C-alpha cells in the first residue's frame, strides 16, 4: 500500500513539475552595472532553447514597480542583443532590467539589478542604496578552458589594448551560439547580479514564434460585455499600406501579428459596429508584461567611493553629450517586401487633382475628376458608389473608403476635402477580396499632409506609435577625430556576437577614463550551462 501511495505522490510531483518552465540556459547580461540617465544600456540575452518564441522583451522597472521603458528584441539562434536608451528624466536609484519571453512571462523573468543616477540631481536626493535580497542569483560557472592572454594589469589612458582569448577545443565543441566579449569600466562598490524571478502572479501571453503579437479586446460600450463577431482592422500606413483583420469571438479578443516590422511604426487599430448604432470600445493589451510584484529590497548606506564615482560618471556623460560621443549607428535590415501592390488591389484609375483646376470640395472633385464614382450629399447624408466595370452597373453598397490607407466609414470626413488636401485618388472599379473580406469597389484617398489628422479619434479607433523589433546597434569602437577632445568611453569594447574560435583577437583603445576595467567573455554550453571568464586591469 505504501508503495502505491509513494508512486501516486511521485506522479503528482512529476505532473506539477511538468508545468513549470525550464530555466536552464536563460542568461541576461548588461555592459555595466552603474549608469547615468541619458546613457545607453547594452544587453545580451541567452534565451531557453526549448522556447520557440522569436521575440524577447527587455524592459526597465523602477523600485516602485513602474515600467519605465522597454524594447522587443529578435531572437536568433536562441540569443538576442539590444539596447535601452535610458531616459534623461530617470530619478537616481536602483532599477530592475528584466528579460522575458511573452509566453512564459507570468512565471519566469530574469532580473538584473542596475543603478541609474540622474544626470542633473546626482545623489542629492538619495541617501541609501536599495539592494535585492532573498533571491537566488543566476549562477554562471567560471571556466578555466577560456584563457585571456596578453592583457596587462595596467594600461595608460588612450593606449592600445591587444588581448587574445584562447578557447580549448573540447569547450569549443560544447559552446552553443555566440560569445559575448565585453570590456568596460567596473564599479567595485556596486556588484550587481542577475536573478531568476519566478512567480505565478502574471498571465502568460501567446507564443510569439513568428513576431510581435498585438492583442486587445473589443467591448460593447452599452453593455460593457465583450463584443463578438466584430471585425477589427489593423492598418500600418506606408507607401504600400499593411493591413490585417481579425473577427472577434465571444471573448471579444483580437490578435495581430507584426511579423516583418522593425523600429518605430505608426499603426491604427479600429473596428466598426455591426449596426450603425452599435458603439464599441477597443482596449489594447500592453506590449510588455505587467511589472507585477518585485523582489524584496534591503537598505544599505552609500559608500563614499560610490558617491565619488557617480559624480565623476555624471561629468563624463555631460561631456560626452556635449561632444555627441554617445551616438551609434543602427544596422539596416533587409526588410522582406511583403506587399507588392496594395491589399485593395491595383487601381483601375489614379487621379491627381493637382493637375486640374482647383476644386473646393469632394462633391466637385468626384463630379469633375472621378468618372465611375457617384457622390451624393442629400440632407447632409453623403453616399458614395463606385461603378462595377465588369457588370456595367454601380455597386449597391458603399465602397471601401481609405484615407492614407486607413479605412473610414464616416463620409463627412471627406466631404470638405478639396484639391489642396488631396495628393491623389486611387479607384478600383471591381469587386475586391482580401481573405474573407469583400470590398465593393475601393476609393483610396491619399492626402497632401499625410498626418492622419482627418481621422476621427474615438474609442473605436486607436492611433499609436509602435516600437516593433529593435534594429541592431553597430557598436564599433569610437573614433575621436579631433585630438583636442578627450575620449570618455566607459564601455571600451562590446561584441555580443563573437564567433567561438580557438583564438579570438581583441584590439581596442583605452579611453581617457582611469579606473578599474574588466574584460569578460560569456557564453552558453549546449547543456544550458552559462560560463564566463574574466580578467581585470587598471587604467591609470
Amino acid at each position, binding site marked *: 500500500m505504501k508503495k502505491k501511495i509513494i508512486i501516486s505522490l511521485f506522479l503528482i510531483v512529476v505532473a506539477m513539475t511538468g508545468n513549470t518552465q525550464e530555466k536552464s540556459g536563460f542568461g541576461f547580461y548588461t555592459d555595466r552595472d552603474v549608469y547615468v540617465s541619458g546613457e545607453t544600456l547594452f544587453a545580451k540575452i541567452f534565451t531557453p532553447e526549448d522556447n520557440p518564441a522569436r521575440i524577447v522583451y527587455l524592459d526597465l522597472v523602477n523600485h516602485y514597480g513602474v515600467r519605465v521603458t522597454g524594447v522587443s528584441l529578435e531572437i536568433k539562434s536562441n540569443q538576442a542583443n539590444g539596447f535601452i536608451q535610458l531616459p534623461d528624466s530617470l530619478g537616481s536609484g536602483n532599477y530592475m532590467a528584466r528579460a522575458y519571453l511573452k509566453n512564459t512571462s507570468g512565471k519566469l523573468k530574469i532580473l538584473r539589478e542596475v543603478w541609474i543616477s540622474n544626470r542633473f540631481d546626482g545623489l542629492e536626493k538619495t541617501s541609501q542604496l536599495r539592494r535585492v535580497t532573498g533571491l537566488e542569483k543566476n549562477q554562471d560557472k567560471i571556466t578555466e578552458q577560456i584563457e585571456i592572454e596578453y592583457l596587462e594589469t595596467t594600461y595608460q589612458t588612450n593606449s592600445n589594448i591587444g588581448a587574445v582569448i584562447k578557447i580549448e577545443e573540447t569547450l569549443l565543441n560544447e559552446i552553443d551560439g555566440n560569445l559575448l566579449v565585453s570590456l568596460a569600466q567596473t564599479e567595485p562598490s556596486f556588484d550587481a547580479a542577475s536573478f531568476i524571478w519566478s512567480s505565478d502572479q502574471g498571465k502568460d501571453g501567446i507564443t510569439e514564434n513568428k513576431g510581435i503579437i498585438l492583442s486587445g479586446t473589443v467591448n460593447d460600450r452599452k453593455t460593457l460585455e465583450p463584443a463578438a463577431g466584430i471585425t477589427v482592422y489593423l492598418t500600418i500606413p506606408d507607401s504600400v499600406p499593411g493591413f490585417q483583420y481579425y473577427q472577434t469571438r465571444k*471573448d471579444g*479578443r483580437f*490578435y495581430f*501579428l507584426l511579423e516583418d516590422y522593425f523600429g518605430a511604426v505608426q499603426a491604427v487599430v479600429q473596428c466598426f459596429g455591426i449596426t450603425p448604432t452599435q458603439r464599441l470600445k477597443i482596449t489594447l493589451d500592453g506590449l510588455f508584461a505587467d511589472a507585477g510584484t518585485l523582489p524584496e529590497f534591503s537598505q544599505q548606506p552609500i559608500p563614499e567611493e560610490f558617491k565619488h564615482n557617480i559624480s565623476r560618471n555624471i561629468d563624463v556623460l555631460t561631456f560626452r553629450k556635449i561632444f555627441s560621443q554617445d551616438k551609434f549607428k543602427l544596422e539596416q535590415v533587409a526588410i522582406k517586401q*511583403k506587399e507588392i501592390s496594395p*491589399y485593395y*488591389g491595383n487601381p483601375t484609375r489614379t487621379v491627381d487633382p493637382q493637375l486640374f483646376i482647383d476644386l473646393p470640395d469632394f462633391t466637385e472633385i468626384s463630379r469633375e475628376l472621378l468618372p465611375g464614382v457617384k457622390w451624393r450629399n442629400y440632407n447632409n447624408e453623403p453616399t458614395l458608389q463606385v461603378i462595377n466595370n465588369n457588370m456595367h452597373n454601380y455597386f449597391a453598397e458603399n465602397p471601401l473608403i481609405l484615407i492614407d490607407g486607413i479605412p473610414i466609414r464616416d463620409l463627412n470626413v471627406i466631404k470638405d476635402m478639396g484639391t489642396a488636401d488631396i495628393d491623389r485618388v486611387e479607384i478600383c472599379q471591381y469587386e*475586391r*477580396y482580401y481573405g474573407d473580406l469583400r470590398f465593393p469597389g475601393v476609393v483610396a484617398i491619399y492626402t497632401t499632409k499625410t498626418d492622419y489628422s482627418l481621422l476621427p479619434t474615438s474609442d473605436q479607433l486607436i492611433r499609436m506609435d509602435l516600437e516593433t523589433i529593435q534594429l541592431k546597434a553597430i557598436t564599433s569602437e569610437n573614433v575621436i577625430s579631433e585630438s583636442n577632445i578627450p575620449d570618455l568611453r566607459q564601455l571600451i569594447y562590446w561584441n555580443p556576437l563573437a564567433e567561438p574560435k580557438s583564438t579570438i583577437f581583441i584590439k581596442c583603445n583605452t579611453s581617457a577614463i582611469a579606473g578599474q576595467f574588466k574584460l569578460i567573455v560569456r557564453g552558453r554550453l549546449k547543456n544550458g550551462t552559462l560560463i564566463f571568464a574574466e580578467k581585470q586591469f587598471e587604467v591609470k
Partner: protein
Amino acid sequence: MNIRIILLIILFHAAGFATTVFAQEPLNPNWDAEKIKGTRYIPYPIYEGVPFLNDSWLPGKIEFASGEIADSLYLRYSSFKDEILYYNKALTTQIVIDKASLNGFSFTEKDGINRVFRRLYFDGFMKGERYFEVLSDGETDLLAYRKVNLITVSPYKDQQNILKNLSYSQNYLYYFYSPEKGYSSVRMNLGALLSKFDKVSQKTIKKLLRKNRIKITDEFSFIYAWKLVEKEGFALIF
C-alpha cells in the same frame, strides 16, 4: 484507497486542463496566415470546348510570393485566361487570385496525380508573368504552358440554339527552361527532343531510348524520355 488516489490524480489533471484550455477562447484558425487577395470571377462566355484545365474544383495549395503556403483550398486553373481560381467557402464565391501575390500552386487530380504550376516571367512573344506546369523539375525544367485560345470555327448552334462561330481550343506549348539560359520551345516528338542536342549526343540518345524501349508518341512518353536523357547528363543546347 487505490480508487481514491486515482481519483485524486484525475482531479488534479482535470483542474490543470481546465485552467489551461478554458482560460480563453481559441484563436481564429489561420489568424496569422497570409490572406488571399483577388477579384471576383466573372464567368466566361459559353462556347464549344472547355476554358479550364480542370473543370471541377480540385483540392490544392498555393504558395505566396513570401514563400508562405496556404493549403486545403479548392482550386481551378483557367487555361483561357491563365489565372487560378479558388472557392471561398465563407463567402461562397469564386475568386481569381492575384497572380503577382503567388509563386505558384498545385492541385491533386481525381486520379491522385499532383500537378504543380510555377509563376515565371516569359520573355518571348507576349511577354509577361505566366503559370507554367512543371512536367519535370531539374537543372533544366520541362514546362508546359496550358493555353486555351478562342478561335473562329465554322458556325454551330449551342444548347440554347444560338448560332456561334467561336470555340475554346487547346494550344499547349512546351519549353525547356533554365533560370540562366531562359526558355527553349520544344514539340512533343523525338525529332524535337533530339534537335536540342549536338550531333554526337543525338546518336547516343537514340540508342538510349531504343534500349529502354521508349517511343515518343505523346506528352507522357516525352517526359519519360527527357527524364532518362537528363539522368544520363546530356547537355541541352538552348
